[in-house]
């Protein structure tokens, strides 16, 4: 089945002032890139998509995920994964613990095997029991990616996910993330400042203007 994330006739307001208008559809494996200066409503859009629009903001329009209207669904039931610019790993859990936390409940042994496999695929073999603070920036980014992917999301949002990595690491991590998005056929929406991110995504690019 073709998966898709649809934003239907969205109008986002801050204190009754129109921030942005959007009407887009992203299909599985595609990456829609949003660019624009700060204050253009990019983060508010992501907050709206995850179901956590702060007070002071209002939105009209609908968001559909795989032909289900999820506009009124609470944040934790949306199955929308997010990668932030910080890895935001849980410091009270090990690397494996962080990933296990994200996975659906199930047989303990199968879950552990799945974690081992996933870590190996991303070149993190042997790090399962490590404390997350002892990982390099690149390793942390990859664990965060695994955490989102193994939670089996139906769509993925990227909130400037590479902006804190230095350039070589940035390219490698970016390639990895995009490859995984295509492999899992997830609709993805990326917010970024960086033109090279947009180019690498290879999808539609929308540039937002700062509204006055």
């Amino acid at each position: 089945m073709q998966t898709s994330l649809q934003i239907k006739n969205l109008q986002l307001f801050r204190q009754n002032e129109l921030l942005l208008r959007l009407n887009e559809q992203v299909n599985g494996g595609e990456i829609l890139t949003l660019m624009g200066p700060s204050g253009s409503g990019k983060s508010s859009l992501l907050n709206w998509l995850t179901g956590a629009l702060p007070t002071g903001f209002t939105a009209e329009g609908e968001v559909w995920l795989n032909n289900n209207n999820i506009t009124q669904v609470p944040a934790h039931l949306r199955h929308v994964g997010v990668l932030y610019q910080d890895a935001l790993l849980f410091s009270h859990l090990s690397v494996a613990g962080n990933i296990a936390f994200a996975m659906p409940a199930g047989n303990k042994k199968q879950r552990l095997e799945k974690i081992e496999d996933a870590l190996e695929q991303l070149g993190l073999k042997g790090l399962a029991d490590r404390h997350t603070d002892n990982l390099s920036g690149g390793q942390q980014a990859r664990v965060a990616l695994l955490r989102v992917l193994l939670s089996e999301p139906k769509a993925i949002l990227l909130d400037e996910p590479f902006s804190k990595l230095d350039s070589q690491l940035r390219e490698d991590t970016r390639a990895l993330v995009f490859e995984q998005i295509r492999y899992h056929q997830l609709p993805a929406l990326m917010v970024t400042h960086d033109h090279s991110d947009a180019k690498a995504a290879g999808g539609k690019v929308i540039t937002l203007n700062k509204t006055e």
Partner: protein
Amino acid sequence: MTVTNKVQVNQTQGVNHSTDWFTRVATFSPKFLLLLLIVPVFGGLIGVLLPAFGWAPALNQYSVGLQGFNALWQTLGLTQMISLSIATGLISTVLAFVITLMILAAFFNSVWLDRIQQILSPILVIPHAAAAIAVGFLIAPSGMVSRLFSPWLIGWELAPHGIFPHDPYGISIMLGLTLKELPFLLLMALGALAQPELGKKLRQQHKVALNLGYCPITAFFKVVLPSLYPLLRLPLLAVLAYASSSVEMPLILGPNTPPTLAVAIMQWFNDVDLNLRIKASAGALLQLALTGGLLVLWLLGEKTVKYLFCESLTNGKREYGGTYWQIITAIVTTLVIVFIALALVGLVLWSVAGFWRFPATLPDSFTLIHWQSAVMQIGEPLFNSLLIGIITTLLAIALTLLCLEYEQIKGKLLSRFTSLIIYIPLLVPSIAFLFGLVWIQQLITVQVSFISYINVIIAHLLFVLPYVFLSLASSYRQLDPRFAIVAASLGTKPSKVFFKVKLPQLFVPILIASALGLAISFGQYLPTLLAGGGRISTITTEAIALANGASRRTSAVYALMQMLLPLIGFILAWVLPKFIYKAARR
């Protein structure tokens, strides 16, 4: 040029070769602080240890032995006293902690959390005794609760004989303690979450857990609590230590046959039969063991909970009936708030009530006569409360500021040992060391008329200092050091930097810490009673003395006055800066 170098070296490398008087005073201050806390607390503990084993020069008893303990073991109802102390201490702490967690979990990242905080935080400044009086009035057979439901629902035309508030199971004490400690724990948790770095991290991680499909309540328990708990440990232990050994609440709300251990010890100490003091000292040691045991039990419980739930943190289960918990929490929170509000309204009504027949919800007539007669008699206790409160608070503020300045001069935080000692008076049952302190004070008889005031101030300082320190430390440590460096580089002396640059920036935090210090001092009962030898009466000692004997109306007036004093302090701390800044801008 030399000044510049010196100060910058001090800031960065911690080398201290200044001979400036102020720097010397500041350098000495942590040692003085330690002395001021260690000598009374540990001296007091020794002072209670020796008489417990029969060595009491004040009573001309020098035969070392176990007679005190023998007398203690033979006390009728000792087991009940111990069980009552353990049950009330442990259950009220667990309840307050559980409700705190439920509120945090259900309303994390919601505007309701701030609202609940705003409603509950004034409860913090209400002294325990006043809170106990208010709760007692509310749950008494002829109290607000039964008035609201009579006679239409429960059919009571006359006030029944109920077991509350002095019920033998200590339920009233637990209720009072839980209601009083809940706002404290909640505020401590919110204070920890208000730390810029930790708070931001935990809020973001909570959001990540939501995105991963976790119900908000589960997300709090699996993601936020493991990182938050270490910061709540010390406040929790302080609450547990207080709840298991305090006398204010059990005196007003507890049973008398037998009372809690702490209350019994106090009665033995104050008995005309001086030989009971040996038994009381043994009892104080038992209290120490009891509270210590509870603290250890809590720490073991912590380990057990961690061990049991470690696996389930990562089992992937996202929902544990969150919707129901959300509703239960909303109901419990509403009940708590309504209960507190009713207690306060009841107190105000009693203080102005004329004739008030049961089951009428409101008094038949109102009168100010109770207030008038109280105002006539209140002069001395009020003067004592203010005098002791102000001197204690000034000392506490000065000492805290100097210690924090020492940190900046040295360029490093106070040692772990010093930080721990600051909180020792909150963890050691005050009834244990205060009695030792009284023994010592009786040995060293100084013939000065105001010696009892000095004793009381020293005793109050033990309890005021920790809170003042807690309240001021974070603001002082967050001061931008560059202001001081700039001032010093212009050739300003360290003392002038402290008084002219740092203190003005800390004006508001100092006012708030002062209001807090005053509130803590106003509320002290046992230290005033014991260190003052019963000769110094304050609003609080009067309120407790009146609570069990005099009329409800007089008692209500005193309880309200007890609340008004700290309230005025906080209002001043809130209003003064506005006026002063306004004046400065003209």
